[in-house]
């Protein structure tokens, strides 16, 4: 069966929420994706200056579950944290895949692009017999990919390694591409880590309909298009000026340091980990989906906004 882009967007934005689950992809969409998967272009996932948190978050996807994502939907040809091979056999397979699928494959970049000491600060492997810096890997793979998914705060905007004084001279993929004059389109999926639905949903959109509509920070509008504070379930407390004074206190979290007013993402309705909880219910929002995190949002536990 096929599904229209319009229906897809509707499901991503809200259907799962109405059903009381955080799953974005209903069985019909999964079915359509599986059918398409045989002919789908491969996805290669590489890691620069990262912590593997984006991968660990991706593994938490519920609908579809990660086994379906890995085995039926995405043809994942390279992923250093899950792939069976190691060393030469793993490394060479990445360059062989890129050669065979030039201009067609999608590249997911986890972690920041470390450029310090001419790239020596991050050398992700020996590819085709040569030790390669992450700079070179990004140039080689980035210029050949159909599009890049820049994952997390790191891939999108540089992340915590790029926080002051940026000792490893790190930056996000878009900034790196500008510097190296690489024209491949980049989709940012920020968050530290990003919600698995944002990753799977964006990949699904890319595979079925191409690059989704992006906001001015390069993020898919369908996930990052709403303001957290404006839609927060604790918003009425803010209007009543009832503010939580300590953790566990009832009220709006702005005085504890909540950065909801400056943050744009749909956590307020999607929830986290199959919707068992989310940041503001637990304590506060730290602004992890926004460019400039963490420096522009420090100190974290002091009122700076709202």
């Amino acid at each position, binding site marked *: 069966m096929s599904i229209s882009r319009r229906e897809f967007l509707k499901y991503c934005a809200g259907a799962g929420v109405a059903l009381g689950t955080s799953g974005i992809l209903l069985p019909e969409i999964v079915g359509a994706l599986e059918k398409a998967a045989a002919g789908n272009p491969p996805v290669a996932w590489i*890691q620069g200056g990262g*912590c593997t948190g984006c991968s660990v978050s991706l*593994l938490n996807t519920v609908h579809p579950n990660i086994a379906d994502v890995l085995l039926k939907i995405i043809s994942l040809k390279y992923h250093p944290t899950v792939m069976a091979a190691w060393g030469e056999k793993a490394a060479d397979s990445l360059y062989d895949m890129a050669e065979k699928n030039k201009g067609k494959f999608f590249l997911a970049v986890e972690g920041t692009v470390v450029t310090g000491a001419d790239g020596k600060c991050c050398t992700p492997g020996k590819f085709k017999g040569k*030790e390669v810096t992450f700079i070179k890997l990004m140039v080689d793979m980035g210029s050949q990919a159909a599009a890049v998914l820049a994952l997390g705060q790191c891939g999108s905007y540089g992340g*915590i390694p790029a926080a002051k004084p940026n000792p490893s001279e790190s930056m996000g993929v878009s900034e790196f591409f500008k510097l190296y004059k690489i024209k491949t389109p980049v989709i940012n999926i920020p968050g530290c880590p990003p919600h698995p639905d944002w990753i799977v949903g964006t990949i699904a959109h890319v595979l079925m309909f191409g690059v989704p509509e992006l906001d001015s920070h390069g993020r898919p509008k369908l996930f990052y298009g709403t303001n957290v504070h404006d839609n927060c379930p604790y918003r009425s407390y803010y209007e009543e000026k009832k503010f939580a004074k*300590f953790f566990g206190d009832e009220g709006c979290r702005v005085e504890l340091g909540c950065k909801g007013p400056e943050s744009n993402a749909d956590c307020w309705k999607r929830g986290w980990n*199959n919707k068992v909880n989310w940041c503001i219910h637990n304590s506060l929002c730290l602004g992890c989906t926004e460019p400039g995190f963490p420096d522009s949002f420090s*100190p974290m536990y002091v009122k700076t906004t709202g």
Partner: protein
Amino acid sequence: MTKLHIDPMTRIEGHLKIEVDIEGGKVVDAKSMGTLFRGFEIILKDRDPRDASQLVQRICGVCPTAHGTASVRCLDNAFGVKPPTNGRIIRNLIYGSDYLMSHILHFYHLAALDYVKGPDTAPFIPRYEGDYRLDPKINKIAVEQYIKALDIKQKTHQMVALFGGRAPIVYGMVVGGATEVPTVDKMISMKWRLQEIKDFIDNTYLPTVYLVAGAYRDLFSVGVGCKNLVSFGVFPLDDDEKSFLLKSGSYTKGKDLPLDQAQVKEYVKYSFYDDKTTGLHPSKGATISDHNKKGAYSYVKAPRYRDLPHEGGPLSRMWVTNPVLSKHANKFLGIDEKKEIRFRDLGGKAFSILGRIAARAEECKLVADAMDKWIMELKPGTPSCVKVEVPKEAEGFGLTEAPRGALGHWISIKNQKIENYQVVAATIWNASPKDDMGNLGPIEQALIGTPVKDIKNPFNVARVVRAFDP
């Protein structure tokens, strides 16, 4: 002599390169090389000390709660505060849930493919060939469990999020305790999720570990290592921290010794850091990079305890604590099930690839069983956190055990800002390079003597490294 480079070492967290020299079918020299520099300790300087417990979680996305725990303990110590009972237990439950996640993920998704042949589809191909020894029927069951364990992993993260806010990387641990006041509803939500995880550990994970071990018995004598073990202790069982579920202490040159954190030093002769920072205790430690240093081969420093390499992780904790093992262990060893056997009864077998993997599985059960009791010790409706104020000047440290080894954070605060913050991370104990005295790191030592039957398909080298869960 043949040189073998394993770069990248996949199915681990981070970037690791392994270089071994092979002669006469055995590894005769080894180098473990960390190939990523981010400089977290430099980034932490001059920030609000409370931000540390968030920033450090981003050091490792597989064990963020380990760094979160070490950091809030370090801040508690520097701020001079003690979390209330609820705070202590909630931290244990968040962290305990992440332990279960980490151990299950390690066996099924990081280590298993060294023993189990996956289906002929990406990401299970390409792969090395030649040393898969499981009976096809058992292999098929193991592959099915790989899939099942993905679902279990996701559910352990639901448990983390119940009090952590979300996972990975949690918001629920702060200096002074935890953020949420426990409710009966949350306690029950955690308890019923835990039942499913416990059932998986008891009836799937543990028996499968011993089943796989049975097909690879020779690996109980491969990867011996330095035989010095250290544990910082984890999961305080009372508010005054008189006892821990997994105890602190070391096993040094064959002797059991109490832990003394003053005996931790970091060496950098073979690391890309300024030589004048070598041999310092972390409270006085410094991180000054020197990217082109001659003779250096790793971005990992070499932490030493009592000036000797010490291994960290489940093997160390289980050896130091020496608890009773599951009945699956009795069965495997052919010992009457009525008889209690303890970890040290494994003897020399413990110091091996499979010793480390079995220690991890047994520890997973120990933590899950303890969590079941902790949930019921929470006091619903009462505070989890005490009020804190950032001190003008203070020093402190926080010790804990990450799933993969001993973890310590040290802080000094000046003018209410971080003056110095030093992290001695779990994996750097194990994956460290040589120290100034010339001693190889624990993984390097464990690699020496490893038989490599087929240099084109170097299974055992990868098995030794991954058994440490780097």
